[in-house]
């Protein structure tokens, strides 16, 4: 799992927006704000902008009707196709056109940060207090959820809950079995296993063309944990060094370089795109690939079309400084409330979100209505055709939702037995995995201003180091140069402060 993914220019994780569009909604609204009839039990009306991952929902379909009924709301949703959320939201923010609530998927968007710092959103620390008024927030969220949403010790958003376990280093179990290799448990065993796989002609076509570790860039996600890159590292001045510039990270690059020189990685991995990687992997061209766990079931299905018996398993590999397991924060974006919303309404909106974090609404968000959207089969909930249509990524954005430990582990289409087995396979991740705090949490304005100049260059340098176009010595010199850069050193100090704030709450 590559920490860079979150920084992708298209929206990666989207926040599920509260859907619940009202069927009676006027289509000519362009600015935020709705009139509120202040009767105490009138449905709460507000407008929200969110990312769309599917066919735009109809306001009056059973799912939304039920959702709004249960929460007593009338929601006016503005959808943005997920791929362009960042672009359009920036436009809206920059032209002063933000709606009452924004479900923002990527917390590191510079426009968002500027917006927060310039007071575009409510500081809700005060409202939340000790969470005594918000029982579901208290008990149903990921550990430290609110910490991840704070800036300068102030909380600005309620979280979009997602599971912490996400990525897994996958390998073809059937190939391991064929060659009598036990499942690798350390990086060295992994390397040896790949060597054996690559030198055997497993697809029987007479050529040794199997790729070992497939990736679409240097696959730092997951592996960085094994080299200690995710452990907090302080430099001589007491600043907190960003993941990529730590010694552990450099060690990892060196390890990949070794792998590449042994022919265990895709030769032109730098030119492979995400979807192409998936296509390659699901047609049996590669032995190992790192991706979200819950893909396994679907990918095995595809693999079995051309290579029957294919089976995927996620590995737990021990490296020099720990297991190669990286976790998400459990928070994938947040719901921000515009400062233009009157205080009373803010409280009501927060109550609404709290309700969405309840188990009841969480289940509704994941499965819909019984016998309409899902059927109970052997104790598992299986979605019906209508369920597939109406209950999906978009609709889950309806609320905060309870923290779901296995959210990215279960496959929606797999039978219960399969999912149970998966749980056993990767359950340990939640306990031993490390979180990359630089991904979404620690903020440094200097970093935000300075690093973009180096970002592309750094990626190029690390790629060149891995493929052998430059020597490790050159790479190390380069990293040192960056570490000595005064602006970056200032950034590290800011990170250190941010980290202290994070720990202290």
């Amino acid at each position, binding site marked *: 799992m590559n920490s860079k993914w979150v920084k992708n*220019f298209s929206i990666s994780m989207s926040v599920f927006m509260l859907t619940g569009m009202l069927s009676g909604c006027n289509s000519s609204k362009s600015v935020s704000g709705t009139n509120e009839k202040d009767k105490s039990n009138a449905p709460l009306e507000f407008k929200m902008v969110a990312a769309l991952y599917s066919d735009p929902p109809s306001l009056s379909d059973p799912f939304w009707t039920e959702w709004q009924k249960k929460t007593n709301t009338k929601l006016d949703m503005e959808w943005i196709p997920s791929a362009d959320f960042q672009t359009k939201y*920036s436009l809206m923010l920059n032209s002063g056109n933000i709606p009452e609530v924004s479900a923002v998927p990527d917390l590191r968007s510079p426009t968002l940060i500027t917006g927060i710092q310039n007071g575009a959103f409510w500081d809700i620390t005060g409202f939340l207090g000790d969470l005594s008024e918000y029982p579901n927030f208290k008990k149903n969220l990921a550990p430290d959820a609110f910490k991840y949403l704070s800036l300068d010790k102030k909380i600005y958003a309620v979280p979009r809950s997602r599971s912490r376990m996400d990525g897994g280093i996958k390998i073809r179990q059937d190939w391991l079995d064929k060659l009598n290799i036990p499942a690798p448990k350390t990086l060295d065993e992994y390397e040896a296993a790949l060597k054996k796989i690559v030198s055997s002609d497993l697809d029987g076509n007479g050529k040794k063309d199997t790729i070992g570790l497939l990736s679409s860039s240097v696959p730092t996600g997951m592996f960085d944990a094994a080299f200690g890159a995710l452990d907090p590292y302080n430099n001589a001045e007491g600043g907190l060094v960003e993941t990529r510039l730590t010694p552990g990270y450099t060690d990892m690059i060196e390890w990949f370089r070794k792998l590449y020189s042994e022919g265990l990685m895709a*030769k032109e991995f*730098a*030119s492979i795109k995400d979807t192409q990687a998936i296509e390659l992997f699901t047609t049996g061209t590669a032995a190992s690939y790192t991706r979200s766990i819950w893909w396994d079931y679907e990918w095995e299905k595809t693999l079995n079309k051309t290579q029957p018996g294919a089976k995927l398993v996620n590995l737990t590999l021990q490296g020099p400084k720990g297991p190669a397991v990286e976790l998400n924060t459990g928070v994938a974006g947040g719901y921000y409330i515009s400062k233009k919303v009157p205080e009373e309404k803010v409280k009501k909106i927060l109550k609404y979100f709290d309700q969405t974090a309840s188990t009841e609404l969480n289940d509704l968000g994941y499965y819909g209505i019984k016998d309409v959207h899902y059927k109970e089969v052997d104790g598992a909930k299986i979605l019906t055709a209508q369920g597939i249509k109406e209950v999906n990524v978009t609709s889950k954005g309806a609320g905060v939702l309870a923290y779901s430990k296995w959210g990215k582990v279960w496959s929606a289409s797999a039978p219960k037995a399969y999912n149970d087995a998966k749980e056993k396979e990767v359950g340990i991740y939640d306990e031993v995995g490390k979180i990359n705090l630089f991904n979404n949490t620690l903020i440094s304005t200097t970093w935000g201003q300075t690093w973009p100049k180096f970002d592309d260059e750094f*990626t190029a340098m690390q790629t060149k180091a891995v493929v052998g176009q430059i020597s490790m010595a050159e790479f190390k010199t380069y990293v040192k140069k960056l570490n000595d850069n005064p602006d970056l050193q200032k950034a590290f100090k800011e990170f250190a402060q941010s980290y202290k704030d994070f720990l202290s709450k």
Partner: protein
Amino acid sequence: MLIYVLAYKLFRKEVFKIAELNQINRQGEPMIKKKSSLNSRIYQYRYLYLLTIPGLIYILIFKFVPMWGLLLAFKEYNFYTGILGSKWVGLKHFTDLFADPFFLIMLRNTIVINMLSLILFFPLPIIISLMLNEVRRAPFKRIMQSIIYLPHFLSWVVIVSLTFFMLSSNVGLVNKLLVTMNFQPVSFLTEKKFFWLLIVFQNIWKETGWGTILFLAAIAGIDVQLYEAAVMDGASRMKQIWHITLPSIRPTIVILLILRLGAIFDVGFEQVLLMANPLVRDVAEVFDTYAFTQGIQNGQMSLGIAVGFFKSLVGLTFVLSANYLAKKIGDEGIY
């Protein structure tokens, strides 16, 4: 449209009177020069204004009014303080841009890609349209015309994906072919030397067909009698092309060339962004990608606008120079 017709009918009488006075010569200037004040000249051309004004008003509103945005290139835009509140930084963004170590590299990449494109790509639609024009069987011609347009409709995402599956050293068809012929696979996608040509070839494949449309339209406007006369004089087909077709579409070619030069610093941004990878960054980074990553992704809006401004300035220079040259050799130019 109805309004125009009505207006025409109403003024018909008047038109009869001044018809003679309105005879125009080749340049559209009145043959009989009258000493006329501006007002009377405006009156004289009132119908022309009627025709022209709608388009011009549109340009004024929707193209000129937003130009205030260009000012942002000289400010540090912050949406919170708004346009007026953002502070002036003068030429800072520009100096930042020029001082960036990558500036010269971006400049080189942009120029090379554009030059290659001009030399390799620009003539092709002309040639293809000439070839199509020579096809005598109408159905054949129609089918082929429709087919060569098709690549224009593919998104760059698809084309880059196709390129990958053709040229990747792991799984590309081309490399698989090379291996069966006992050659070493070639890393087309990650070696710098191939990048520019790849970009240009992709462009050629995608846009040549679509580009023939304009030339076909131009050829269609050629007076057929010219050909008849040439045939009677015994001219071969090649001679006809050389002496009739080409000269007749020369104005179109020149115009399109000048317009192309106005976009000299534009490089297919989406295409380059998709084709780029860390290993070819040195040859792939162009102004457009820079403006995108810095401007939109990193929220430095003013920097992005400054880059655009710079590109526009260069484009303007090229357009004006090219136009001047064109006029010098006797062409109409664009204005």
